[in-house]
């Protein structure tokens, strides 16, 4: 039986994160003393209007940017204490990324896109192919894995990008507006895949989006505005899920 939500230790923790940008001699604060803890096995959504600082928060939590103040702990590592090279190594071993643009190399077919980052993990060629194939099959692209990005639809490209991010079997998966370039049907497919990854693998999935469809399918929604977390609540679906589990326990 799965332990209750509050009992699971957080895999990603931020305390007193502060970040500001300087443009034209003017300093604009983006994040004000943000504190949060994110647990594995959940699809956590950071939501808010444009320019509220949600992408910056994602960049800091994932170790792509350093905060001016505060501490980020991911899987027990204090990211602030890692140098650039160590951060790269940490990301290689533990994190996956999905971006709004699919960022696939035009020259490579779907299988090669997924194999590429895997090949830097020091696995055997056979293992690389096996894991890449599996990842593509998991996102429903098994029959299309030999096609190049130009031959794939937008939704399929994003699924390749997801397969590329999860083939490494990361404990942390970060997604930035993964559905905003997609139509309703494809957006739904992506949401379902992200959800499954969190549930089935126990991955910590942190997603930034203002897509309302995602809000309904997330386990937890953090609402940000003007660099502050305004609300932190379990989403509707999650509440139902938890409630049903509680009933089951009782």
């Amino acid at each position, binding site marked *: 039986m799965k332990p209750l939500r509050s009992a699971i230790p957080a895999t990603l923790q931020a305390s007193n994160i502060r970040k500001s940008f300087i443009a034209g001699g003017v300093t604009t604060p983006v994040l004000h003393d943000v504190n949060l803890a994110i647990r594995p096995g959940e699809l956590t959504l950071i939501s808010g209007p444009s320019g509220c600082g949600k992408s910056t928060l*994602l960049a800091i939590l994932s170790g792509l940017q350093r905060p001016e103040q505060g501490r980020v702990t991911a899987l027990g590592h204090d990211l602030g204490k890692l140098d650039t090279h160590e951060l790269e*190594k940490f990301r290689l071993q533990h994190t996956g990324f999905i971006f709004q643009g699919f960022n696939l190399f035009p020259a490579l077919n779907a299988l090669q896109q997924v194999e590429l980052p895997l090949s*830097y993990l020091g696995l055997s060629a056979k293992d690389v192919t096996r894991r890449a194939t599996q990842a593509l099959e998991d996102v429903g692209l098994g029959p299309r894995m030999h096609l190049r990005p130009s031959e794939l639809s937008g939704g399929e490209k994003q699924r390749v990008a997801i397969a590329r991010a999860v083939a490494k079997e990361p404990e942390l998966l970060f997604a930035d507006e993964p559905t905003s370039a997609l139509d309703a049907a494809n957006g739904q497919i992506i949401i379902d895949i992200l959800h499954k990854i969190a549930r089935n693998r126990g991955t910590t999935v942190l997603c930034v989006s203002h897509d309302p469809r995602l809000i309904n399918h997330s386990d937890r929604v953090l609402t940000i505005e003007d660099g502050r977390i305004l609300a932190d609540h379990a989403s509707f679906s999650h509440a139902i899920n938890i409630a049903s589990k509680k009933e089951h326990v009782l």
Partner: protein
Amino acid sequence: MVALARQTLLYEWRRFLPAIIAVGFAGLLQLLQVGLVTGIFSSASVYITRSAADVWVGFPGTQSVNLGRTIDAGVEMRLRMDPDITRVEQFQWLDADWRGARDTGGVSVFVSGIETGPRGLMFQQLLSTPLRALLNEPGAVIVDRADLVTLGVNLGDVATINGRRVHVVGITGGLRALGGVNVLTALSTARLLDTAIVSDRTTYLVAKVRDPAQADAVAGRLEGATAFGSYAVWTAEQFAHRSQMYWIFDTGAGAGVLFMAAIVFLVGAVITSQTLVAAVAGSIREYATLNALGVGVNALRKVVMEQAFWVGAIGLLGSSILACGLFAIAWHFNVPVEISPAAVGACLLLSMILALVSGLAAIRTLRQADPASLLR
């Protein structure tokens, strides 16, 4: 390992084409330039390279074959005294004025007076024994077929050198000279053509050594003696090199070659680096994504350098094929081109360095591959 560099190069070949063409043409220009310059200037030493002599004896300090002054013919005795020398010949070299059968005006010719015996050392590679024997006839000359138009004669025609009648008894190839036309005659004819030649003096003495590998030792041994007047001794190889270097450097051609090489390198590097920079910039978001996924910057740099290497390799393959074709055409039309494997290697290496330096320039573009920039 996914061959990202090669796959991208193949798939986006149009994007890389300017760089490949730039490297290819840089390589081709270097090869042709070196080929032409060495080809032209190697004709300065045609007397040495087409002959069978191992040791050359001439006026001290002579910088090039065509600058020879006379030495005492008695030195021949000194050479014959050396146990390792098997054959000694005189070689008369003189500058003369030619008037052809057709109206050609005056043509500056270089007359080579040589031994006409069956085993004659001079121009052994160009003259068969019967052809050489034809020179025994007084006033007989042999010319290069490529010079027939310049000289205004055909086989059997009569012409004058320094006002004296000569007739063309034979035609050969490979005699083209620098700054004039080579004409071969017997030693006796050469003496008739220039009254200034004193009978007991000669421009050069050439000798055959029993074991050609010993030529250095023999030359060193002969060099010191002064009993027969002053003279200098070189091995054939040394003297040929000396003559070529004189022409390459004293005419400024060498500086020209280096200057051209620098220009070609610079222009090639600018085009190649710009193309590679554009290619990297075109994939910057993909590179940034890889970096976000933990692929290190060094690994990404390696991809760019590998791309530069392949651009260089394909460019050089193209330039080698084109150069082979152009050299074949040049040989067909008797244009003097010549290139040593070492020079080919140097030209190709220079072009590969060009490609790699351009790759280094393109690496700097990777700094823009900041994964945080993808989160906006």
